């Protein structure tokens, strides 16, 4: 039982990271329908930002973190400007920007790969390494930090969509682009903002997970895949779905490894099988969008 509680904290932390990546996808998919697989590389950029500002230059953590988020905001906006807007304006089929973004994935990864040494690089823990016990449940400082920050981000995003005018504009675009345009909502601004926010959220995810897994140029693709799995399971319709999906994926993964009586190697196949079955049975995800 002790094992389970400890694992629960670790799985929750991993689940939050997947949830953040899923949220990043969601922020971009909802208003535009574009799946941006480069979110994994954006997470990688956040991690490397952490290496440069926090490890190499030793900036104080809050300052570094804010700078990284701001930087990612710009990266997201620039990506939309360069790889998405020209195609959307020309009326290209929806697959075109998705592929252009896949190309950007390669560009981001290689740009980092040629600029840094090949080994994984350390990113500092904001609270150091230590163990915390809350209500009898124990875990590392970093795990609780990740969970805390993620809950804040999701709460903030939910409030944004539910309670603010700008958020409602987003929803309107997501539900019906043309109608939203007719109502005077600036489509390109919404799109640009969604990409910028998506990049910031993904970068945050990368920064949070990298003290554990280190910053390295191959970290993007596995995160992108896990995040996408989380998104599909949780459903694209609601923000909370991304977090739910992330937690489910992480728990399925880690509980299977710990408790399932199959050799470890096969355990990697379980989330994949889970996903495939899910898609056949309930492709729209667990949480339905509001009508």
């Amino acid at each position: 039982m002790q094992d389970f509680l400890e694992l629960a904290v670790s799985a929750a932390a991993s689940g939050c990271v997947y949830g953040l990546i899923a949220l990043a996808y969601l922020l971009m998919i909802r208003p535009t329908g574009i799946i941006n697989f480069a979110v994994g590389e954006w997470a990688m950029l956040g991690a490397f930002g952490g290496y440069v500002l926090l490890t190499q230059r030793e900036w104080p953590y809050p300052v570094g973190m804010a700078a990284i988020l701001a930087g990612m905001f710009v990266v997201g906006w620039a990506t939309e400007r360069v790889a998405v807007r020209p195609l959307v304006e020309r009326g290209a089929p929806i697959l075109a920007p998705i592929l252009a973004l896949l190309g950007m994935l390669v560009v981001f990864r290689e740009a980092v790969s040629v600029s840094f040494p090949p080994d994984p690089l350390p990113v500092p823990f904001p609270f150091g390494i230590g163990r915390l016990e809350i209500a009898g449940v124990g875990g590392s400082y970093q795990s609780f930090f990740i969970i805390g920050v993620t809950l804040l981000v999701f709460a903030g995003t939910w409030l944004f969509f539910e309670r603010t005018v700008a958020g409602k504009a987003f929803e309107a675009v997501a539900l019906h682009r043309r109608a939203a345009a007719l109502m005077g909502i600036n489509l390109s601004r919404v799109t640009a903002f969604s990409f910028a926010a998506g990049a910031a959220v993904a970068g945050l995810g990368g920064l949070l997970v990298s003290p554990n897994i280190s910053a390295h140029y191959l970290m993007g693709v596995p995160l992108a895949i896990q995040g996408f799995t989380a998104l599909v399971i949780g459903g694209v319709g609601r923000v909370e779905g991304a977090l739910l999906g992330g937690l489910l994926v992480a728990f399925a993964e880690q509980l299977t490894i710990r408790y399932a009586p199959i050799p470890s190697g096969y355990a990697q196949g379980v989330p994949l099988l889970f996903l495939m079955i899910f898609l056949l049975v309930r492709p729209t995800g667990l949480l339905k969008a509001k009508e």
Partner: protein
Amino acid sequence: MRAGATWLAALLVMSGAAFFMGEYYNDVYRKLLLWVTLALGYNFLFGICGQVAFSHFAFYGIGAYSIVIFLFQVHLPFPLAVVAGIALCVVFALAVAIPSTRLEGFYLALATLALGQLFIVVLNEGGAVTGGTGGIANYRLPDIFGVHIRGPWYTGVIVALVLSTYAVLLRLDRSWFGRACRAVRDNPEAAAAMGVNVTRTKVITFTLTSALAGLTGMVYAFVDNTVNPPIFGIDNAFLLLFMVIVGGAGRHAGAVIGAVLLYLLPFWLSPLVGHHHVLVFGVLLVAAILFQPKGLISLWDKLQARVRRA
């Protein structure tokens, strides 16, 4: 009759070229032809029938591994091994196609992506059967009906494969089946209203193209005489998609252009740009999509149109 002569001429010229190339160029040529075959099949599935699937490469792998396992572990005679391999691909393809007709767009993409990854996990964990993470090596193409096929002659086999695949797909494309596929791609509801059996069309297309990929895989197994998991990874599935898109989805010529360009590009870039070559590749890819979202084949079309106008 004239059409038959053209095909024969193509076969002779393309195979004959193999006898004049060194070992290295022969190797690149063979692998290029295999990619062209895969791209043609994928173009039919994705470009003409509109099914976004990432499982194509998994079937390539199933074909390759199955022929090696049937020949060298189960010790079947060659013709039986080929038939068994194709049968296996068809069975798997049906098993995947039938449930996946319920999925649209990115759900299909995701399910087939998961399938591709699952395939690699199975290969890695397959122990003695699949050779695990190291794969299987140390085998040779057995004599087929007493004929010992090696070197440039094998390239001839590959040329025959490309041309026959092209012929089959071209035929299908121009038939009512091709029209049905396009209808399913463009507007499934309208297609159904016009009497097209959407599900059956999708299943047949998926099964056919996947079986073709499997057959291609069988031919691949004897090119390097090695099969291992990294060859069939999902990176290559994405590259295949890029080839078809950059060349021009829905057009056979587009698939060929895309495959030739994207396969050869790293070979040209690497000596020019050194270790930055993947970065340049990525940039070129993005540029190609930004400037020609309909594929590079549209450049050719524009050129032809201009010539015709002149």
